[in-house]
Each structure stands twice: as structure tokens, then as C-alpha cells.
């Protein structure tokens, strides 16, 4: 199922990316803290973490909807953080986004046709009949009736709206699509349809995805590689199959054990790792390893509470940031 990435020139490379939001009185929310990763052409990278871990912020930094506090984001070798105005606007053609909430991501005052045509108009790509034809073609590609182009978003269901959002993202034939929890607002029955559609589109248009989600079960299906994020840091990166078989970070382990298995016998025998406490505050993150207050295997104070574990290679193409990664129990 895993397609090996043939060429090793990354499409996107993030270097030491930091995003702090001012939180008043000199404090700041440290949403993303010195993050490094690559995305290779044609692959799907899953980005997983619980609410508030900074994964959506990271997605918006990559698409430059938010400016970075520091660090660099190279897209095909060009540093997006150094671009501004028109140069950045031109780059946006290659870098599109699918949003989480299909109800708020479509302008309620615009017809579906106008919504999908807007990216084309922004770059003066097509006009008149040719534009209308392209819009109808895009509707067809995402499985919607092309003659609904003059309808308004509120006439559609959540799943249909998400397809409209996908059509808009495809309009410019981008190379990379950042999908920010594209299915978490949808009914379970619809989720699989959207995932399948995204997979089909990836094959057809050679797309690269950064797929953001808050649980691993969704990401397992679609991703080639998975990145796990906790409190602004990436704590583990590995091939999808590898990370499920052999998690090297206790947080990943906990996320995995939270996936229900549809077999009551196995489910009863599993050891579910319950994390104690809430996610710590990103205004004042814990010292050392950010996960140590909730970690079942942490040794406090040394090293976990005073030494930040680096994200290092634990096995081939498998990096984790944990002092005791060999103690993480194997998956059930």
C-alpha cells in the first residue's frame, strides 16, 4: 500500500518554522515551535495531533495564510516566507487548501459556479464560455452535477459542499494541496466518499497532499507517511505502516490505542493507554519534553523534565523525539 517515494527532492521543506501568537501582556501562544519536515512530490503526508496542537496553524503557515514568526518554508526551492504581494500571489496557484468546515468555507452569497471560477479569474486564465466549461468540468470531476453551477452553497449537503471546496482547490491545477481536517465535519458515511475522491484525484492529477486530521484511523488509510504533532512540536515521523506497527513515541502509542478495533474480543484484550490530564498550555509549555506531564513512561525530573529530546532517527526513515523510545510498548 505504501508507495515508496522515488525521487528525494522535496516539493516542500519546512525549516525551523516557528509561529507565536501574541496573547497580551507580553505573553504569547507558542502554536508552532521549531518544526522541520519535508513533503515529497506525489506523496500524502498525514499530520495528526489533538485539538490545539498547532496542526491547523502549521497548515496555514505552509499556504502562507499566516506569516511565520521565524523559519523558512521552501516550495520547489523558493522560500515562501520571503515572498510578498504579487510574487506570493502567483505562487498560490501551485499551493491550494481544502478547509475543515464545509459550511463556512463557501461564501453564502456566491453561486457555486462563481466560487469555483474565482481562482481562474484571479489569474486571468479563462474567460467567458471556456471558463464556464471548465467550471462544469470541475464539478463533474468531483462528482457533482455540472448544471448545479448556478445554485447557492446552502442548497447542498455537507459532503456536497466539501466536494465544491475540492473543485475550487483543483481549479488552478496545484501541485500541493493542504487539506485541513477535510472530513472531520462530515457524517461518517460521507467521510469515506471524500477520502476516496481525494485518492482518485491524486492519481489523476499527480497531487501531493498534506492531510491534517485529529485521529490516526483516518490518516492511516490515505497517508504514505505520518507526522504526529504535540503542543507545537513534531514528535514522530515515519512511514504509515511503520508508525502503526512500531510507534516510537508514547504519545503516538496513546493515539493508536484510542482507535477502536471492530472486534470485541481483540478490543477487550487491548491495553488502552489513558493519558492523564489535559493538553498543557501552549502559552507556558512544560520544560524539557513537552509531553512529560502526561507521559506514562517519563522519568522526572531527569531527563524528561529538563532536557528536550531531539527528533532523531530511531529506525530507517523513522524519527521520534523521545528519550525512552525503546521502552514504548509495541502495538497490539
Amino acid at each position: 500500500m505504501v508507495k515508496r517515494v522515488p525521487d528525494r527532492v522535496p516539493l516542500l521543506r519546512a525549516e525551523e518554522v516557528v509561529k507565536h501568537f501574541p496573547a497580551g501582556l507580553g505573553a504569547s501562544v507558542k502554536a508552532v515551535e521549531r518544526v522541520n519536515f519535508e513533503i515529497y512530490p506525489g506523496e500524502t503526508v498525514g499530520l495528526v495531533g489533538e485539538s490545539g496542537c498547532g496542526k491547523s496553524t502549521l497548515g496555514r503557515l505552509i499556504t502562507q495564510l499566516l506569516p511565520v514568526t521565524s523559519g523558512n518554508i521552501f516550495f520547489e526551492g523558493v522560500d515562501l516566507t520571503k515572498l510578498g504581494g504579487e510574487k506570493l500571489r502567483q505562487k498560490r496557484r501551485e499551493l491550494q487548501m481544502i478547509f475543515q468546515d464545509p459550511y463556512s468555507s463557501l461564501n453564502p452569497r456566491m453561486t457555486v459556479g462563481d466560487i469555483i471560477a474565482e481562482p481562474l479569474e484571479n489569474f486571468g486564465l479563462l474567460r467567458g464560455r471556456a471558463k464556464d466549461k471548465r467550471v462544469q468540468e470541475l464539478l463533474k470531476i468531483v462528482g457533482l452535477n455540472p448544471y448545479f453551477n448556478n445554485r447557492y452553497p446552502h442548497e447542498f449537503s455537507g459532503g456536497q459542499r466539501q466536494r465544491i471546496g475540492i473543485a475550487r482547490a483543483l481549479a488552478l491545477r496545484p501541485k500541493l494541496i493542504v487539506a485541513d481536517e477535510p472530513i472531520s465535519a462530515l457524517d461518517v458515511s460521507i467521510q469515506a466518499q471524500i477520502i476516496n475522491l481525494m485518492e482518485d484525484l491524486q492519481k489523476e492529477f499527480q497531487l501531493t497532499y498534506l492531510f491534517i486530521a485529529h485521529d490516526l484511523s483516518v490518516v492511516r488509510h490515505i497517508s504514505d507517511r505520518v507526522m504526529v504533532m504535540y503542543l507545537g512540536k513534531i514528535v514522530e515521523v515515519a512511514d504509515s505502516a511503520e508508525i502503526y506497527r512500531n510507534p516510537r513515541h508514547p504519545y503516538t502509542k496513546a493515539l493508536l490505542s484510542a482507535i477502536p478495533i471492530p472486534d470485541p474480543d481483540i478490543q477487550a484484550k487491548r491495553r488502552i493507554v489513558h493519558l492523564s490530564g489535559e493538553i498543557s498550555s501552549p502559552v507556558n509549555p512544560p520544560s524539557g519534553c513537552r509531553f512529560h506531564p502526561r507521559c506514562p513512561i517519563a522519568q522526572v525530573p531527569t531527563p524528561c523534565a529538563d532536557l528536550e529530546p531531539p527528533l532523531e532517527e530511531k529506525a530507517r526513515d523513522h524519527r521520534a523525539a523521545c528519550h525512552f523510545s525503546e521502552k514504548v510498548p509495541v502495538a497490539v
Partner: protein
Amino acid sequence: MATAPGVATPEEYVGDTLAREQTSLWADAWRRLRRNRLALVSTFILLLLVVVAIVSAFWTPFPIWRQSVGPTYDPPSLHHLLGTDQRGRDIFSRLMVGAQVSLQVGVGTQIIVAALGITVGLLAGYFRGWLDGIISTIINIFYGIPDLLVALILVLLLGRGLDKIIFAIAVTRWMDMARLVRGQTFALREREFVEAARASGTRPNKILSRHILPNALGPIIVQATFGVPQAILFEAFLSFLGLGVQPPTPSWGAMAADGFHALRIAPHIVLVPAIALSLTLMAFNFLGDGLRDALDPRQKR
């Protein structure tokens, strides 16, 4: 891995059944407005007022400027439906033309207020930063100066033409609209569809005109509707003080002032324009309430 169905063929569009009937958001609002009886009655009164104002431009029972068309201080009669004033002018005729003045002041002011307030509010709300700082400071300064003082000075400087009065009132009234639009823009710019527009390379001018303004239009319309009676009342007040439109053009405020000294012997001279003014103000306010409920159904619950 589950085998995915291929990209849909025309026979299997998922979108062939729509979740809801095809209704535009405006049609929906109109449906809600129609169910509000007070707003409907108000709309009717205001339409009548508009008709009267238009008719008065071409025809009135008596010429409004001519004095002694009847006896002075004459109470309402069949000949002079609403009586005559201290100079023997027909009050009904003057009331009709007064409607014209009030509507022009009310609507004219709000057109200027909307143009200025929307522009300023959109810019401050969208670009934030130093631009917002400057604009917000100007707004606060204007709030700080008494509006009557500003209007009086402008009327004294510019003169008492209708257009000058409209301008003077607008100058004291644009801040509410600017603040409203700024707040709306602040909220809307964080919505995902605005992010989506930015992500697909939409330029700021188009984001403002296509994404933010249309979605702020509901509250803007409501604000403008409430602004009309305020402006009308302000003009009436200026006229009552003798600083409104140039006589003999009849303004309801000036008409009330004319009859003020004769309140005991001929109360109708004051009452007629006062009642007309009150009815108009009430109608605009009820319509504003109705529009607010119709355009923003969430607020009603």
C-alpha cells in the same frame, strides 16, 4: 485499501439530489419580513409617504408658499383638510411637501453615511494595523464633538440649502456605520471562505467587494434603516431652531416651530407635523426591527 469508485460518470452524480429547495437568502429574508405584521404596516405607511412626496412635487391642493389661501389659524375643515397656519397657508399642502423634505434628508443622509462608513469601515477592519488605528481615532474624535455643534457650524458656513443640511447631518452621523462595518469586517475576514479566497489568489479589493461586503449587507441595511429616522429628527430639530432648510420650503420641524407660539388657540398647527413626524419615525424604527429579525434570524432566538 478499499477500491474507490472512479471519478463519477454522469449517471452517478452525488449532487443530483439537493439538500434544500432553491431559495436565495434574500427571498428567505423577505418571507420572514412578511410574517412580521408591524414591519408590514410600517412598510405600507412609508410607501404611502413616498407616494405623497412624489405627488407633492407635481401637485398640492393649494400652492404652499401662497399666504392667505384661507383665514389664518383655521382649524381643519372640508376646504382645508388640516386647517391653515398663522399666515393662512394650507397645512395639508405644506405637510405633503414636508414629507418630500424629510425623505430627502433621511435617505440622502444615509446614502452619504453608507458610502463613507462602508469604505472607512472595510479598510479599517480588513487591513487593521496603523490604518485601523488612525481611522478608529478619527471616529472617536467625531464621537467626542457634540453633533449639534458640528451641524450648526457647518450650516452657518455652508448655508441652508437642502443639500448642505444633508451633508452637515451626515458628517455627524457616519461613525456608527463605520464602526458597524469595521466590526463586521473584523469578524468576516477570519471566516474560512475569506481565507479560501486569499489562498486562491484573490486580490484585496475583490475580497472586500465580493466576499466581505455582501455578507455584511444585512446589518448595514438595518443600520441605515435606523439611521433614517435619526437624520429626519435631527433635521426637524434644526428647523425647529430656525437653522433647517430655507423658508418657505416647509419642513415638519419648521412647521411645528411656526405654530408653537399659538399652541393654545390653534394646536393643530403643531400637532399635525408632530404626528406626521412621529408616525414616520415609528414606521422606520419598526421596519428596522423587522429587517433585523428577517436578515439575521439567529438573533431572534
